[in-house]
């Protein structure tokens, strides 16, 4: 540090023989504010985002909280062997994938459709009111949404009353207590909450499409449906692809809060997802190593899915995120 020259002098010196080390330190001094403004956050990212990866070592141990790292007993792949022999694990995996895939399908088709329809609305006040209202549920917490859904679907709730009034059913259905309704309820709640919000991105992609294309299509006699199919949809293709790849990467991490809030002991065989399974084993009954193995499985498969989806679309659709 003693040999460090002041920033002012080195800046002007471009002698090739000047020591690399000296130039390095001069750069540090020159960028000291930028470094001070960014290094704390890099350290923060390291602790809160990268250090948990180091925690994966627990999956190969029989982790006991009281012991230090060197005292832990290493057990190799034993935790994973137990996991893959656990019948519940496959049940949980099925639930996770089922709700994710349903969410993926509904989370793309409906917002895209909504964005396209909204784009065809010519009355600005109507469009603005529709947008304001449909974005709204996105800002409401899952606790509130779960409360509203439970109230709507209760025995004397609005949905049952409506269905009886329409003579579709004769007896009210106990929606929240029937396990085969659960996936549908989660997906439906998600649609209700996020359709408007997810449509924003597609809507703004649509506004980027060249207006002349529509004019040309009209001259050629294309109706509104033809224009949507042949211009609007291809026009937002790359937006759809990129978002789709990202969603595939989150297939196993499609949230657990809504399942936790909407589920109950009666529907647990259909509501339990990987993260909740990890939570129950890893934290509630303190099988930390086993819980970590579940979490790790989840994260690794997610990354693999992301790369697979990215590679697939890169090859066949010439779209990618990386």
């Amino acid at each position, binding site marked *: 540090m003693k040999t460090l020259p002041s920033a002012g002098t080195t800046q002007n010196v471009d002698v090739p023989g000047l020591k690399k080390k000296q130039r390095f330190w001069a750069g540090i001094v020159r960028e000291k504010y930028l470094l001070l403004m960014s290094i704390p956050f890099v350290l923060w990212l390291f602790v809160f985002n990268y250090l948990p990866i180091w925690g994966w070592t627990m999956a190969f141990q029989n982790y006991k909280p009281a012991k230090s790292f060197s005292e832990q007993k290493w057990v190799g792949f034993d935790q994973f062997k137990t996991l893959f022999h656990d019948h519940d694990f496959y049940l949980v995996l099925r639930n996770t994938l089922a709700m994710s895939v349903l969410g993926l399908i509904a989370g793309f088709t409906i917002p895209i459709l909504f964005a396209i329809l909204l784009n065809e609305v010519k009355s600005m006040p109507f469009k603005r009111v529709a947008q304001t209202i449909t974005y709204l549920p996105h800002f409401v917490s899952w606790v509130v949404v779960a409360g509203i859904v439970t109230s709507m679907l209760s025995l004397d709730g*609005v949905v049952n009353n409506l269905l009886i009034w329409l003579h579709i059913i004769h007896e009210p259905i106990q929606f929240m207590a029937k396990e085969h309704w659960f996936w549908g309820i989660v997906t439906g709640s998600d649609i209700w909450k996020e359709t408007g919000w997810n449509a924003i991105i597609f809507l703004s992609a649509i506004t980027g499409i060249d207006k002349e294309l529509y004019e040309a299509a009209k001259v050629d006699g294309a109706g509104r449906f033809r224009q949507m199919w042949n211009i609007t949809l291809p026009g937002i293709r790359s937006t759809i692809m990129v978002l789709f790849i990202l969603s595939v990467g989150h297939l196993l991490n499609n949230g657990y809060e809504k399942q936790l809030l909407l589920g109950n002991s009666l529907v647990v065989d259909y509501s339990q997802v990987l993260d909740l399974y990890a939570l129950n084993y890893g934290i509630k009954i303190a099988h930390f190593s086993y819980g970590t193995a579940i979490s*790790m499985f989840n994260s690794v498969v997610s990354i693999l899915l992301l790369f697979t989806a990215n590679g697939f679309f890169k090859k066949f659709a010439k779209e990618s995120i990386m």
Partner: protein
Amino acid sequence: MFSKSINLNWGERSFNIINYTVIALMVAVTLYPFINVLAISFNDSIDTVRGGIYLWPREFTLKNYNTIFSYTSLLTGFKISVLRTLIGTLIGLMSASMLAYTLSRTDFRSRKFISVFLALTMYFSGGLVPIYILMRDLHLIGTFAIYVLPGLVSAFNVFVIRSYIDGLPYALQESAKLDGANDFQIYYKVILPLCKPVLATIALFLAVGQWNAWFDTYLYNGNKPSLTTLQYELQKILDSTQQGSAMNNANDLAKQMAQVSPESIKMAITIVVTVPILVVYPFLQRYFVGGMTLGAVKS
């Protein structure tokens, strides 16, 4: 030729009618649950048990709201929720914008490394259990800090702000530099004031995230009554009375009446928890649409 154009107009018109109807229906389905909740919350709690409240209260009362303001756990929850929203939003805004500014500087040598380091966090996560163990090792469980610290820097927010800064004219920074301002002063005095629109968007995202957060309280601070949030208290009340609604048939009516009026109280709390968001949201709408688009293009 003539008949064709009439045909087209007719097609256009029927398309418009169907389109407007579909959208109006979606708007109605989105809005109706809120109206229903509002109506129930203003209805006499014993009368609510009879069911059949749809659009407006049958027996209007403010009693439900009076009742819930006497719940002390809700008051504590409200205080903690307000605190975490204010502190979390403020600190989150400062850190995201500061980091974003350094990443917008093309002459910053560590820029590439930090960008990648940050972007990677969007694609992987250590998972629930390792993160829990980390929080325990850092002694953050059972503290207020756990509401603010783990979510301090979000890659998405940083990239949204950075792409906004990228769009600002560089000459402004140049002239500030000539006036002798250092990098921090440029950030604080030149960049921050210009970033108001994008900061409003991010502030909205952060504030809503903080206000609506429930899982962290549930996981880390559930047995700390002095640190539980409003969402957590609401969930406890919703959950404790859920059995009530599952056995809402005539036989249980008397039992329901004797109970402390679940449904209307529940809905009143739901309204109280939701209203702060409904109040600020329309004002910020014009900002967040821009912010969403910016993030999508760049990230």
